[in-house]
């Protein structure tokens, strides 16, 4: 009985993947015929089956860009980037789309240490860090098991040389992986979709406006209170904006 359920589940998910691919292809066709509205509908529909890939988000972003919906374009590019952080096309299109964003928010100049840490942290994507961590972990356990039973001196010596570097590497990679997982769970970013939104000093509609943001700006969400998000910009400014003004990546 249980086996049956599993089979059904696999069959259903395979069927869903087929559905997603089919609708995806329809979206591609519409885009190629410059029917960007239809393309948007198809790509959005493809996501309704609970399956996604970087390509779906990227194409959706492109279709929105062609319809001059820069906020949604950037939102979908950023979603694509989350799944595939080192894709050249995604990065390029984000830059193009950002030209159309009114606000230019400078990133503060980072010091060497921060840059180094940042570089290490985003050297690989989350999945790759997971696999690397698991790989090193299994290797290390394999070393221990072999050391318990092996009698070949050469093998034992090799393991003795390799175990400490592998262990240290596992510590570093594992630490970064844990940090990344923590970030993935806790650090939320959003993109402003409203054409213009006032950033308020407190989470109520009658509080003072500090500055304004425009469609397409990527912000970090640091808290939520009622109908307001507390957001922070890369240059350190923060404030409250209504939930409806943005969408979480």
């Amino acid at each position: 009985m249980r086996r049956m359920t599993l089979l059904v589940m696999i069959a259903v998910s395979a069927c869903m993947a087929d559905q997603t691919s089919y609708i995806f292809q329809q979206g591609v066709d519409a885009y190629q015929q410059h029917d960007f509205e239809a393309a948007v509908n198809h790509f959005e529909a493809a996501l309704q089956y609970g399956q996604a890939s970087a390509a779906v988000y990227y194409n959706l972003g492109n279709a929105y860009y062609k319809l001059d919906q820069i906020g949604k374009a950037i939102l979908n590019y950023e979603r694509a980037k989350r799944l595939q952080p080192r894709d050249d096309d995604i990065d390029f299109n984000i830059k193009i789309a950002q030209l159309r964003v009114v606000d230019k928010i400078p990133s503060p100049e980072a010091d060497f240490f921060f840059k180094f840490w940042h570089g290490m942290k985003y050297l690989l994507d989350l999945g790759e860090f997971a696999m690397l961590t698991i790989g090193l972990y299994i290797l290390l356990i394999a070393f221990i098991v072999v050391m318990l039973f092996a009698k070949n001196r050469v093998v034992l010596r090799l393991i003795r040389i390799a175990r400490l570097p592998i262990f240290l590497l596992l510590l570093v990679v594992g630490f970064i992986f844990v940090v990344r997982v923590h970030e993935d769970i806790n650090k939320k970013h959003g993109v402003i979709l409203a054409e213009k939104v006032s950033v308020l000093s407190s989470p109520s509609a009658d509080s003072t406006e500090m500055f304004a943001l425009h469609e397409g700006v990527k912000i970090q969400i640091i808290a939520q209170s009622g109908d307001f998000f507390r957001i922070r910009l890369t240059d350190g400014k923060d404030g409250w904006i209504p939930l409806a003004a943005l969408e979480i990546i």
Partner: protein
Amino acid sequence: MNSKIFLTLMIILSTVFLVWAQPLTVTTTVNQTQIGVDQQLVFTIELTGEAAQQVGQPELPDMQGYLAFLGSGGTSQNISFVNGKMSVSKSFSFYYLATKEGTFTIPAITVIHDDKEYQSQPIHITITKGTQTAGTQAQGASPSTADEGTSAEADDLYVRTIVSKRRVYQNEPVIVTYRIYAAVRVTGYTITKLPETTGFWTEDIETPQQPQVNNQVINGVNYVTADIKKVAIFPTSAGKKTIGPMSLQCEVKVQNTRRSRDLFDSFFDDAFFGRTIRKSIESPAVEIDVLPLPAAGKPDDFAGAVGQYKLSAAIDKTEVETNEAITLKITISGSGNIRLLPQPNVTIPPDFEQYAPKETENISRQNNVISGSKTFEYVLVPRFPGVQKIKPVTFSYFDPRNDAYQTLTAPEIVINVARGTGQFVAVGGSGLSKEEVKYVGQDIRFIKLTPGILRAINYHIYTSAGFLSLLILPLFVLGAAFIYKNHVAKLSVNEAYARSRKANSMAMKRLAKAKSLLAETTLKEFYAEVASALTGFAADKLNKPKAGLMSDELEKEFNKKNIDSGLTKEYFDLIRMCDFQRFAPSTVAKDEMERSYKQARDVIIKLEKAL
């Protein structure tokens, strides 16, 4: 033709008069008594009289450093008869270069002939600091080609190329004047070919629309002169350079009827009797010796500027906010090749965003000098707050007047940068950063044609079953490995443990053997095996020698281990039964044997649990 007739007449007349020896006279002449420094002077010694033929080249006077000897211009000899007297004249000409300014007297020279001294008159000359109009170093007339008629003779009309200097440094200006000499009436001219000046950078010098006309008498002929073109040329490399010829076409009024070279003809020409012909003339080519700039003392930042300059540097604001543009203006003014002035040496701190400088020139071409100023405007955008210093701007040039390099330095500029607003404001208000500018005008890249790997939208690798199982499974493997290792270690170290572990399997082996003997014919062997299995098992478990294991000893051990008395009884009853069957001459049914076998097995299993 005229002179031949004249000569013949003279010869006839000379026969009439008595011929007598004329005393020797020495005259010295210069072509001009007022010259400028660096200009040439022609000094001529003329010896007249019968004795002149026998006199060699006289000794040259001491010029006392005012004039430097350049070379000999050659000798000419002329024999003529005047009033029946034969006159012999011999002239030597020498070229000198005026080297320093002042008034100077060329001393008289003395020629000794037949023990008699003949002296010339001293000549006073004035050497001035250099004149604007240059001397007559270069002259010449090209053969004229008249379109029609031959009335305009070759010497009537020519162009000279007059250069201010013949030896200059690279990039030092030479003023070239094209001066027309006309003994005929010129009503107009057009320049048909400009001089070729390969290897020079040329700047025109302004000349009046209507050239200034002067009169000059040369060799007894009155010429009208006019400077028709003036250029400043800057040799771009060292070596011998040639200024090519310039071609002119002049409209000349000539008279058809008279073939006279009367001085007055060209000036009192009557338009009614003359007609206009076109005449092409060409200026001679002039060679200039260009010296390379000296290597000694060349400053590091020297970039080829020659002349006399001044440097100034100024900034429009010294108190600014970040991201606010300021302009650094550097001006070099003076005389020289302004247009080709190199950029001064400016070091902009890296905290400034810097744009290519805007260059503006202001050139004056008057008074035979190319002068003016060149301004470099640098737009700078400070990106970070603080006190920023622009190091002193330097500019080096070579001054040909004193043959030395000069370095000019403008004072250091200090700018106070305050923190401005966070918004990024680029110059020109485009609002784009430098990095962004390169994306302007580009379209987004095309979509992906395949969906790639599809995953559930809420998929996270760190919660996926695969990841978690890979994280946990190795731990089980590791635990199992440790347990197994521990077991192997115990086996090898502890014989009692080993025997105890093996007891069960040994007993089972014996029972299996017994089972094979389960037949009435092998009854004794069957019971022997069962007994052996039972006693062997207990011996192994308790690590006792199997031989000589007494039942009462075993019973004690069983009691120590708190074994159920029923089980103990069962065990010993079974052994006793086995012994009985082995030695009693009775027979037992096969079922009975089978029951004993099962019983033995159960006892062993129970004991295994208990021990």
